[in-house]
């Protein structure tokens, strides 16, 4: 490891306007759907309309005869081909499903693929899709997790003889002993409902043979994980990895749903190979609702034990996690990403965790913004509020009593994680000040006393998360197949321009800007002279991609080290050319000069040309100038924050209004505060939407009832307020840039804040929980039930 270099340009920490915006604001974009290659064929998937059925017959005769049709394939054409795979077998005895590229004998969820039409025009492909005659013999579907685990339930995978996928446990401390000491035990069942991620850009795949190298097949796909995908595509198809190039061009949002291996990617590659022509598929929104993975979907039984003075002793968690019909990339692992987080920011002597994964005839679940951690945070922050109510304590006071004090860091919490830094007191104090906490409490009291039909509630969420996935050894210990390192190469090109090649793969985050800022500060080149290359295994061959708030926390470290290595090498060349010892070279503001004689200096451009020409480089120094680094993180990072929500509830209609939302986050050092704030806003909207609007609903036969944006409600600008946000800065000590990650914080923290606020508003009416989403009907029914009504 090289020495840390003083900041060169001060670019880190500045709210620089994004480089990405110019193309995005003028329509000069490069979405997969914009890629139009000569001779392109269009792919249309014929999907099952029912959740569970035996395939009697798929007759493609009429479709094959239709105008423009080049080929129609069924499962018989790809009999053993997997369309996705799971890289995280979380237990030794987990039952691992086979996810067919095209179903052969049975369909297991509504949306499962039974045939593929390839035509010369996308309108004709859609027409021919309607002509594929699919004869399905419906089978009883299993939709509910608890029903699925009962004897005699219909089986999703007959070969397993059960719908039980796995049970993972993690006992930390002795919960029984802790409970035995408790004066108060509060138990609740929370339903963390199924969500459909709904990136604004639907998925899309273009695959083309011989666009680059002769034997190469290029796959453009709207993905977060081009590098992981390349490896898995090779493993699943047998196409040699060195003949596959995966490109993620402009990607319109990810949120986890594009952290996946999809059958449309596998088949895209295979169809391009088989037909020798480019093929293109663009997901419709209706397809997205059933064919892209879903998130959350847990039944959470949580119990908290405390003494009468409010000291938390322990937490016991039993989860049922809905896998859906198949395991995809990290389906079983997703709920376990929350495993370590059920103690939140609180000290306790025991945490007992158990999670059972269950197969059902529904779309597979997998990572969605936060992935396991929002569920954990929801459960602990909700149960802490319920404990406060049981104890008659003010909920913030209860939290203060139990959280880790700032002077106690680094702190090894009950699940074994060592939180390096944090200051919950500071974030909370700032949040309460911005919120007007005491004034709102006073207003709440007045409204309660006057019997106002619109009641006011204060919702609290004091949270932490584990980010920066992840130390490779830790991942290995958790049975995850791959590592958690990240790569960066910074090349000083002969003409003096800088190419920063990153293994992270952005989809809206602004890596091009932020990575330029980091590199600028290290190598002393203006931000605008740095081009960030990403998302193309041909140009950026090494990487572990973007998810789990890892890009800055892990990828940022790689940029730092690569930059430092570049500077070290440049110093050697500069010293040689200036005929001094490298120790006599001073590096400041991007210029390499002789100490005490600044007139004698070399610029990076001069050095890079010299390294390229290589006429006069020192012995033992290789030509060309670049710095490379592949960095494995030392630990996770632990952002935290305090979020407060003021909720107004119309007790007559059940309609809820978010009046005020304050988020004070601590993500450590901020490379670009503008981008940080944007990430917070977006995360808040998604977390609030889980609390208030979103939820995938199925009928008893496994039909998705919320299969369009008309039924699956996403908030618009008219449904949300402006947010009040601020940050405290407690730098990470385990991450060399002091950064922690911010991509998921808003989504993790806000959901419990909203629900706690609604329940707080209604507690005098006897309400102690509200199902999500807290729709008018769900809120009204909670009130009716508490009042002893028929609802």
């Amino acid at each position, binding site marked *: 490891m090289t020495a840390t270099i003083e900041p060169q340009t001060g670019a880190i920490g500045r709210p620089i306007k994004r480089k990405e915006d110019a193309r995005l604001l003028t329509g000069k974009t490069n979405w997969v759907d914009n890629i139009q290659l000569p001779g392109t064929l269009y792919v249309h998937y014929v999907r099952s309309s029912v959740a569970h059925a035996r395939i009697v017959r798929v007759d493609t005769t009429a479709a094959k005869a239709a105008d423009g049709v080049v080929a129609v394939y069924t499962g018989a054409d790809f009999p053993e081909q997997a369309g996705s795979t799971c890289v995280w077998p979380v237990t030794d005895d987990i039952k691992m499903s086979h996810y067919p590229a095209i179903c052969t004998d049975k369909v297991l969820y509504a949306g499962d693929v039974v045939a593929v039409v390839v035509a010369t025009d*996308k*309108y004709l492909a*859609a*027409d021919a899709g*309607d002509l594929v005659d699919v004869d399905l013999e419906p089978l009883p579907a299993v939709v509910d997790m608890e029903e699925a685990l009962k004897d005699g339930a219909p089986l999703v995978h007959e070969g397993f003889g059960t719908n039980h996928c796995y049970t993972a446990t993690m006992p930390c401390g002795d919960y029984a002993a802790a409970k035995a000491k408790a004066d108060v035990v509060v138990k609740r069942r929370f339903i963390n409902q199924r969500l459909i991620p709904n990136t604004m850009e639907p998925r899309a795949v273009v695959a083309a043979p011989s666009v680059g190298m002769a034997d190469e097949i290029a796959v453009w796909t709207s993905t977060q994980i081009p590098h992981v995908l390349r490896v898995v595509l090779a493993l699943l198809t047998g196409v040699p990895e060195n003949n596959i190039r995966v490109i993620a061009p402009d990607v319109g949002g990810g949120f986890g749903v594009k952290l996946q291996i999809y059958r449309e990617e596998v088949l895209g590659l295979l169809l391009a190979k088989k037909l020798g022509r480019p093929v293109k598929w663009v997901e*419709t*929104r*209706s397809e997205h609702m059933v064919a892209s993975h879903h998130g959350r979907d847990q039944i959470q039984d949580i119990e908290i034990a405390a003494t009468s003075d409010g000291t938390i002793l322990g937490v016991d968690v039993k989860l049922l996690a809905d896998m859906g019909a198949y395991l995809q990339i990290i389906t079983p692992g997703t709920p376990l990403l929350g495993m370590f987080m059920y103690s939140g920011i609180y000290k306790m002597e025991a945490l007992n965790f158990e999670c059972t994964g269950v197969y059902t005839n529904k779309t597979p679940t997998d990572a969605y913004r936060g992935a396991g951690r929002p569920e954990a945070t929801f459960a602990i922050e909700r149960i802490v509020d319920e404990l406060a109510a049981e104890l008659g304590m003010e909920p913030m006071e209860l939290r203060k009593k139990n959280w880790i004090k700032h002077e106690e860091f680094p702190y090894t919490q009950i699940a074994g994680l060592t939180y390096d830094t944090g200051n919950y007191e500071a974030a909370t104090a700032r949040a309460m000040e911005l919120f007007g906490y005491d004034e709102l409490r006073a207003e709440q009291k007045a409204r309660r006393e006057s019997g106002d039909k619109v009641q006011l509630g204060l919702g609290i969420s004091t949270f932490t998360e584990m980010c920066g996935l992840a130390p490779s050894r830790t991942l290995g210990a958790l049975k995850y197949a791959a590592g958690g390192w990240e790569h960066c190469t910074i090349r000083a090109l002969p003409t003096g321009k800088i190419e920063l090649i990153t293994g992270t793969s952005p989809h809206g985050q602004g890596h091009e800007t932020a990575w330029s800022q980091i590199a600028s500060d290290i190598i002393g080149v203006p931000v605008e002279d740095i081009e960030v290359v990403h998302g193309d295994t041909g140009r950026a061959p090494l990487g572990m991609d973007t998810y789990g708030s890892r890009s800055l926390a892990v990828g940022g470290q790689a940029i730092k080290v690569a930059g430092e290595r570049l500077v070290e090498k440049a110093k050697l060349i500069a010293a040689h050319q200036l005929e001094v010892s490298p120790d006599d070279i001073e590096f400041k503001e991007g210029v390499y000069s002789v100490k005490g004689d600044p007139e004698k200096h070399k610029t990076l451009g001069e050095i890079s040309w010299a390294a390229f020409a290589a006429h006069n480089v020192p012995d033992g120094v290789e030509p060309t100038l670049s710095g490379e680094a592949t960095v494995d993180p030392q630990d996770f990072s632990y952002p935290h924050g305090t979020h407060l929500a003021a909720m107004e509830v119309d007790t*007559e*209609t059940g*309609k809820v209004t978010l009046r005020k939302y304050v988020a004070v986050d601590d993500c450590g050092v901020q490379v670009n505060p503008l981008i940080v704030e944007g990430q917070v806003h977006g995360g808040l909207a998604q977390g609030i939407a889980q609390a208030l*609007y979103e939820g995938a*609903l199925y009928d008893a036969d496994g039909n998705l*009832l*919320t299969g*369009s944006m*008309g*039924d699956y*409600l*996403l*908030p*618009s600008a*008219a*449904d949300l307020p402006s947010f009040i946000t601020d940050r405290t800065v407690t730098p990470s000590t385990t991450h060399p840039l002091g950064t922690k990650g911010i991509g998921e914080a808003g989504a993790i923290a806000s959901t419990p804040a909203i629900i706690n606020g609604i329940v707080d508003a209604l507690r005098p009416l006897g309400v102690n929980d509200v199902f999500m989403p807290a*729709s*008018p*009907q769900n809120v*009204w*029914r909670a009130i009716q039930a508490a009042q002893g009504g028929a*609802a």
Partner: protein
Amino acid sequence: MIPSTFDYVKAGSVDEAVAALAEAGDDAKVLGGGQSLLPVLRLRLNAPTVIVDVSGVDEMRTVADEGGSLLIGAAVTTYEVMHHDAIKASVPLLAQAAGLVADPAIRHRGTFGGSCAHADPAGDLPTVARALDAEFVIAGPGGRRTVGASGFFVDYFTTAVQPDEVLVAVRVPKLDGWGAHYEKFHRTAQAWAIVGVAAAVKVEGGTITGARVALTNMGPSPVRASSVESALVGGPATQEAISAAAQSAADGTSPTSDTHAQADFREHLARVLTARAVAKAAGI
């Protein structure tokens, strides 16, 4: 996302539209602004073989003042309804409700007539038409006929307009001197109404002397809350009297259950929202 194939006829007059429909047979559809029809075509929920575009028929694009009523062409857009001076002045209930339909871009192209002819039970404008006892002018091979709102809305997505007919215009009575309000209850701003209430009341000397109340999404078609109307008329324009009258709002309705609300919640909402809508219409 891709409609099935169809032939397209751009009608220059009502007669041309009727002739095109006659020629097309049963599988034709009339296209106004297309804001209800296009989604249906894209999702292939319907696959007409002929589309007859009436958006260019001048007669259907105008608003005529008939003295006691306004004759609003079926192809007048929701946006135009919102901003039309005579509609705002004489039928403010319609202008206000129009502003709550869908979103601005949809309102720019969607039409009043199209909304009525589509007859979605969650549609806002059909309820206003029902509350106001609007009349529907329909042209067909046998000439023109006029159908009252009570007979126009037949069932889910079904009106008195036959496959060979075109809705030409909607005659809306002016309610000068009445107060009015449309109360839309929905989960997000762009979502359909879970329940809507169109209310118009005439208050003279503190007494309600006239009342029109109709409900959205409380059955297959807009429902007139007659018992609320009769309970209101002759009574005082007070919150108490209005709330009492609104208690019968759900009587005789047959709301559906869906992902947003079960029938019993809709019935509850109908009572609460009727009280609110009438109170606002009465200016209290």
